[in-house]
């Protein structure tokens, strides 16, 4: 039963990529360095453990923040202001889901590390439960094409590497990221299922 369910998922591109990369890597390791295979996988597991702890730390902070935002009534007020526009973007009348999606987008634009995920995951689940695949796709594509206005990591790394003017990368990055987000949103809109 379990096997069958996994086999039916083959449409999800991750399954194809996972199988292809895993097999190709296994063959290369088999020929070149058979003893390196397990350590490579364990290194991945190790990273996942480290990353999870880092994520846990930032989710703690931001989930606390978002709860205060909710209970103070501020998220309702923000949602009320943004609802007319956001409703059309996501084609959803679910006030709560759209409000969560707006919090996700705002956290993305401000570039708050780790903050977009909790409201993003909650909004996606609500959209999917309401069988609104369009909204879930839109939210995912907006997230996956980067909305961050200030590339803080890049600027910090360039400063560390001794760039003459670390921030002069700002304009090309901003233009490129605006373009990718716009293109992604338009493609989701154009390829939507008509009902």
């Amino acid at each position, binding site marked *: 039963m379990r096997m069958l369910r996994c086999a039916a*998922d083959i449409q999800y*591109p991750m399954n194809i990529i*996972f199988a292809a*990369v895993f097999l190709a*890597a*296994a063959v290369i390791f088999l020929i070149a360095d058979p003893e390196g295979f397990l350590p*490579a*996988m364990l290194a*991945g597991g190790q990273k*996942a453990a480290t990353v*999870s702890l880092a*994520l846990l730390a930032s*989710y*703690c902070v931001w*989930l*606390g*923040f*978002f*709860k*205060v935002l909710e209970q*103070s*009534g*501020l998220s309702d007020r923000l949602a009320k202001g943004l609802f007319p526009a956001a409703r059309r973007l996501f084609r959803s009348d679910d006030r709560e889901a759209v409000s969560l999606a707006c919090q996700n987008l705002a956290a993305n634009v*401000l570039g708050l590390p780790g903050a977009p*995920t*909790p409201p993003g*995951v909650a909004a*996606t*689940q609500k959209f*999917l439960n309401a069988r609104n695949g369009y909204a*879930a*796709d839109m*939210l*995912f*594509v907006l*997230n*996956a*094409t*980067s909305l*961050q206005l*200030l590339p*803080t*990591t*890049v600027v910090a*790394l*360039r400063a560390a*590497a001794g760039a003459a003017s*670390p*921030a002069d*990368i*700002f304009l*090309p*990055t901003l*233009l*490129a*990221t605006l*373009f*990718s987000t716009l*293109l992604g949103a338009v493609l989701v809109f154009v*390829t939507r299922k008509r009902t």
Partner: protein
Amino acid sequence: MKYAALIIPLLFAALFVYALIRKVRLYDCFTEGVKGAIPLVVSLFPYLVSVLILSELFEQSGLSARLTQGLAPVFRFLGIPPEIGKLVLLKPFSGSGSTALLSEILSAYGADSYIARCACVAYGSSETVFFISAVYFAGSRKNLTKPVLIALFSNFASLILGCLFCRIL
């Protein structure tokens, strides 16, 4: 740019002042929110492990280096310096991996070089598509081919444009 660091403390201070005016019990409320953190991480953990094991195999097997080599003519044709090909291939899988790679490129070619600038745009204008799809759609049975392809395509198209901007801006 240094003002960017002010955003987070200002955001928290403004929210907490507003919440106090609205008579929210801050400690109780904040703690209540934190309760959701462990269940969230637990639900994402298996997907995280699979994606990160995959990105580790992709890199350590030399697969990414071979692919980069094979794709170099394509990158060159599109105006993307082939030296950043590995970064372009790795970014959809792993944020921490591509951050490390970006700082390697910066020190190898010099932070102000054309290659390094293109690498910065590649890093800054795209996102970890597979990682985000694993996290946002954790456990759902939705067919993700379309949104993932759209995200990858948009990021790649903007990279071509970004490298062009690096030449002219």
